């Protein structure tokens, strides 16, 4: 298009090499964009950001070593102007809120990447924010809900792993009664009928991930 205009410099962060390749194929095919660097976890992302100062960062959330949310908090703390787009497999209001609070400017589902990625990169680069309507609706629906405490999230994660109360108690070094209390609170806060239901809701809303 316009040879004079500087290209949008993009940093791509994802632990899956094939996905990074896909993003690279799409981004480098655009005349107004350039992929400056890649990272496969949060720690690398911070390093690469410091070196390259990209215009736009594409950030996966679930990564080994350091996840996307923690990386975003670190990056945005250091560089308040950082423009970060979150790419994730699952929707879910809690995960979206966490990401947006951490400083994400946009929140994209990987299933919609093909059609939305390039446009979103341009919008975010232009200083706009972008949250897909489906996710916005999700956010609105649970806006007034009581959030789970860190401990409750931990318990829910262990429940999802197929642990019985006794095992959870042993793992967290608390009594079985306390675990039961946590489970009861989790069910009440999520409006779940039983443990499996709570796990389903937890996954759907991004409170826990697989």
């Amino acid at each position, binding site marked *: 298009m316009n040879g004079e205009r500087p290209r949008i410099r993009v940093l791509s962060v994802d632990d899956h090499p094939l*996905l990074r390749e896909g993003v690279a194929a799409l981004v480098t095919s655009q005349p107004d964009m350039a992929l400056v660097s890649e990272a496969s976890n949060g720690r690398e992302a911070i390093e690469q950001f410091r070196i390259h100062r990209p215009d736009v960062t594409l950030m996966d959330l679930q990564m080994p070593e350091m996840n996307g949310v923690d990386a975003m908090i670190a990056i945005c703390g250091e560089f308040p102007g950082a423009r970060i787009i979150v790419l994730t497999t699952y929707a879910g209001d809690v995960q979206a809120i966490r990401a947006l609070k951490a400083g994400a400017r946009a929140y994209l589902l*990987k*299933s919609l990447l093909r059609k939305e990625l390039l446009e979103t990169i341009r919008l975010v680069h232009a200083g706009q924010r972008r949250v897909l309507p489906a996710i916005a609706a999700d956010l609105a629906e649970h806006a007034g809900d009581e959030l789970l405490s860190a401990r409750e999230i931990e318990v829910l994660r262990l429940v999802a792993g197929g642990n019985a109360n006794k095992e959870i108690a042993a793992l967290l070094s608390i009594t079985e009664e306390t675990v039961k209390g946590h489970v009861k609170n989790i*069910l009440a806060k999520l409006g779940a*009928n039983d443990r*499996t239901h709570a796990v389903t809701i937890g996954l759907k809303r991004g409170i826990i991930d697989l």
Partner: protein
Amino acid sequence: MSTIGQQHSSAEVPHKPEGKRGSFQQTARHFCVGLIGLALITVAVIRLNLQPGAISLLYLIVVVFVSLKGGLVSSVAFSLVAVFCLYYFFLSQIFSPGGRNPLDIVATIAFLFTAWVITGMVARNRRLTEDQLRVRFEERLAERTRIARELHDTLLQSFQALMLHFQAVDDQLPPGKAKEALGKVLDQADQAIVEGRDAIQNLRSSAMFANELAHAIAELGKELARTHSGETHSTTFRVSVEGTPRDLHPTLRDDVFRIACEALRNSFQHAQASKIEVDLTFGERLFELRIRDDGKGIDPKHLDSGRDRHWGLPGMRERAQQIAGTLEIWSETGAGTEVELRIPGSVAYSVSPGGAGFHLFGKGKETGS
């Protein structure tokens, strides 16, 4: 549960409530059945003129049977009735024709003790089996989580990545038929990936949100009816519930639901039925799911071989087996199909009701939360 009927116009769910009196009636029924058994044995024993040892043994069997069936109240009451009969009709005459004999009391205590010990042992054994099943459910939950994670990390990510590559290629194609065709295929692939993603997310849980099996099945039937309407025939669909609906164990509930899915799908898709009915029976001792249609039936060849994946019959049988249930399928060409799943109540329900457990030895074990 009682609101199910109001939520669907096409699928009504009549519901016969048993209410709180149900457990009392159950106890009374067990007690009465026991009394009849006792009376029959007494008559037979008098006729046959058996030895006191044999008489005691027969009584013992009836007492243990009633104790296992009924709750603590009926078992205690019944034991006392049995001891009274034993003492009154037989022992007193044999041991002491004239007056009282301390041996009678010893015999009575020994009888009660033996009855309760046997009952306690059988009940404990049954609880242990239930515990084993429960552990298996937990293990399966963990296993499903592991599979879901694996699929998410590998297959799903790779497909999502490949879609980006395809898009990059698509962008380079000049406008024309090829680009148009590729665009359509890519849209379909998107859809497939989303379905795959949702399936992975749901791997460990059914589509049911509440523990309302009847509701979920009714919803599914409605959905299937909608998808298959507009064909040459119309189908009426009905779900009915008998007994007081109780919570099923979550993992088991998934399997029950999936079996129902498969059976309903068969009925809606292949049977060309005009009537499809689902009966759920929440019995004290037995949970039953029955799905009936008046369609064209399943070819006996398919029914027996189980090789034909078309009907998903092997999968249904496998699931039923895993949850200690029995699955029976009756079908005749032109006469319709009936699928029946039966699961023992002790396995099916997530929490045993107060009356059903005989907790003489050890503590009652409770489920998850």
